[in-house]
């Protein structure tokens, strides 16, 4: 039935997280985009000006008058249209298959490592419900790899990628020479996470953020929060240690939430994500990976 052909993707679009800012929303939107792109391949392309080419259904924004009389543009989505049917044309492609699923049983490499429960919580946020415990997950939109969705910048910070994008000697020592070998090696991913976390701890310590572990703070919207090592590590993992310090300075100065900015992620969404992680990871055990 035609109406149900994309039901799996539409189900994702109906999830509340799909419309929210943040990692999960980004992941869902990327997945839906990839799904539609695979099923309706086009020739749909976006040129440098952002204009879509042919075979496109553009559901444009429309004006809605608000109770105060102001006009608010409601943004809709746009997507590629189904190509016109041709005689003898092959059936439309199936949904994109998850990439690089190892044939062998996948090792539960996080078990027995430091901060196991913390790792599980991060993985649940980054690569939930992906095959192979998320180890084979790729976000083609962002370049994030594996169970913990480490971006190229994070891999650079951890010493696994050079600034020019080559895998380092350190990576090769763990059997990683390219993206595929990284995705196929759960232990290497756990080690890469250790390296990245360890570097983040160094930065948090040097920025004197860790001095504040145990202190209560009041969040941007008046909610009480307690700074825990676990929460700070999770926040820095996502937003970077300098941003966490910026957030704490912002709170300490008693400033109002930063303004929302259109079209960019901006400081407000970054601060919101920091607060969310401080709260979500507050009760989690976390042992520092590097000494003082």
């Amino acid at each position, binding site marked *: 039935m035609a109406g149900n052909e994309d039901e799996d993707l539409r189900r994702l679009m109906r999830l509340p997280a799909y419309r929210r800012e943040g990692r999960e929303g980004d992941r869902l*939107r990327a997945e839906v985009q990839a799904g539609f792109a695979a099923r309706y391949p086009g020739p749909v392309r976006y040129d440098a000006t952002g204009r879509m080419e042919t075979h496109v259904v553009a559901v444009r924004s429309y004006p809605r008058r608000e109770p105060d009389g102001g006009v608010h543009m409601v943004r809709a989505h746009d997507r590629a249209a189904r190509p016109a049917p041709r005689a003898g044309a092959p059936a439309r492609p199936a949904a994109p298959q998850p990439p690089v699923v190892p044939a062998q049983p996948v090792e539960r490499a996080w078990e027995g490592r430091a901060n196991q429960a913390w790792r599980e919580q991060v993985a649940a946020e980054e690569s939930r419900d992906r095959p192979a415990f998320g180890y084979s997950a790729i976000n083609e939109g962002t370049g994030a790899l594996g169970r913990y969705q480490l971006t190229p910048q994070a891999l650079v910070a951890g010493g696994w990628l050079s600034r*020019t994008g080559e895998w380092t000697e350190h990576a090769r020592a763990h059997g990683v020479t390219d993206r595929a070998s990284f995705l196929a090696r759960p232990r290497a991913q756990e080690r890469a996470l250790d390296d990245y976390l360890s570097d983040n701890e160094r930065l948090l310590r040097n920025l004197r953020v860790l001095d504040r572990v145990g202190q209560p703070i009041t969040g941007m919207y008046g909610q009480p929060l307690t700074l825990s090592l676990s929460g700070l590590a999770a926040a820095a993992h996502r937003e970077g240690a300098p941003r966490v310090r910026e957030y704490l300075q912002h709170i300490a100065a008693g400033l109002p939430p930063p303004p929302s900015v259109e079209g960019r992620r901006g400081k407000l969404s970054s601060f919101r994500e920091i607060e969310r992680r401080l709260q979500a990871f507050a009760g989690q055990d976390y042992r520092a990976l590097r000494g003082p």
Partner: protein
Amino acid sequence: MTKFWTSLAALLLAATSGQGEALPWRQVPFEVGEALAILRREKGTVGETIGMDLEGSSPGAAAAEANGTGNFDAARHLSWVIADVNGDGRPDVFLVVTWPPAYGTNPFLRGGLIVSTGQRRWRFACEIEMVRTGATTPPVHLLPRHGRGWREFAIQGLRPRPIRYRWLQRDGQMICDPETWEERP
């Protein structure tokens, strides 16, 4: 053997006559340095972040420098494009900070467009943001269309199509602004 002597003679002649391959030194253009100073002063932008001291009591840690997680270094952690966006004949500078600690596991890179307002005078025009999926920083596409005489531009964001920045007049100054909902005819 004759060929060897011919080559040697050519080499000696080139050396004595000052020819040969000249290898020029490279340095950050002065426009970029001046634009960076403006970005650093702009509150709420990545320009504030790059001033942080991450090295604390252990400056210059070799591993941190190699990984790019020492302090910000303009020679290593900055990408730029110099272009004339308003047709006044003076260079304007797009800056993007590629310093890993500023981003965590976010794929976004941030920076700004700094426009020249006169001889050695600059102004912050807007913050820009882009998604980097690999080692290469995405390019800036200057668009042929002019908005109030200023060239709009597009940069790759997280969505499939690039984010277009248009020009608006605010408080008597032109500022660039990412376009989010408006579809062009």
